[in-house]
């Protein structure tokens, strides 16, 4: 039983670490909080396909007001090699973003998955499958 539980915990840890995007140019933990996962639903307002990481912006309804969130993704060349293009995400797309919250309290998150209304995901595997 204990062994089984250990196995499950190892699996969970494995999954959560595997999902953390490779941040070759800065430490993930210096910018984001792994203990603060966040889910954001909204409409894409802008995509910046630029180095060192892509950013896109999502209008999220919070009560009566709309807050524009910044979302950081992977490096453009890595995304391109995984099949993503500059039009993989378009202004006006409805998205659900799962990611981690920025440490500085700003409306910024690092994406883990971005899901479109039809269930398709975009910008996955930002790390090129190598996340060690």
């Amino acid at each position, binding site marked *: 039983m204990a062994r089984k539980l250990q196995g499950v915990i190892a699996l969970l840890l494995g999954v959560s670490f595997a999902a953390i995007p*490779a*941040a*070759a*140019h*800065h*430490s993930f*933990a*210096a*910018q984001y909080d792994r203990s603060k996962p966040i889910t954001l639903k909204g409409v894409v307002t802008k995509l*910046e396909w*630029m*180095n*060192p*990481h892509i*950013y896109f912006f999502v209008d999220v309804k919070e009560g009566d007001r709309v807050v524009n969130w*910044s979302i*950081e993704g992977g*490096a*453009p*060349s*890595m995304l*391109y*090699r995984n099949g993503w293009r500059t039009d993989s995400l378009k202004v006006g797309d409805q998205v659900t973003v799962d990611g981690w919250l*920025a*440490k*500085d309290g*700003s409306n*910024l998150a690092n994406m883990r998955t971005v899901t479109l209304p039809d269930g398709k995901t975009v910008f996955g595997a930002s*790390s*090129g499958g*190598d996340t*060690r």
Partner: protein
Amino acid sequence: MTRRFIGRAMVLALFAFPAMAQTPAKAPPILAGTWRNQYTPNLAEALGKEPPYTAYGAERWRTVDTSKDPTGFCLPPGPSRIFTAPFPFILMQQGDMISFLFEYQTLWRVVYMDGRPHPADIADYPDFMGHSVGKWDGETLVVDTVAINERSWLDTAGHEHSAKLHLTERIKKISEDKLEWTVTFDDPVFFTKPWSLSRSFTRFDDSKDRIMPYTCTENNRDVEHLKPNQPNLSYKYEPEK
């Protein structure tokens, strides 16, 4: 008579100059091509333990703040870290020079292969990517690098080095599509003895892919959001025996 003399002279020559009887010196292996690195954000993880720190090196590791990572500010990663970043590079081999053209940060390294030493004053003019000279040891390319700006880090995890860092890299073709890269870090300020790590470079199919842009300062929004982060404060130094 003349024919016999020529025959004897030839036999004599073969004894006197055995090399003449063999094929000319073997040309160095062709390492040129486009290669993909093995992403290694933490050298100690790849090594299976922390490197052999001096007390000073251990204290730097214990207190390192990863929000200060120079590459986070788009400064160059240094000569070895760029070979562990998840981006491909082109290796060019031309006469007395070997060069590496990296996608990451659009940087390059030159290795002088003409037998010259490092410039006498090079320590006064350090570069983030260091100064490299090289030679062939049989089939292996051996690159010697000094004058590496001490502001560069060895990896994303936050392993650092001093201005005294001396790198030796050995690159060997182990198959048509694989190079083995062994790097030795020799830095008496940070480490009690030199330590080495091997990684591989796999051939990158540039008929289907290409080296892409990476101008780090293009849109480095991250900088303004970095917060102090010291993950190793509970590290306990145990000098290696």
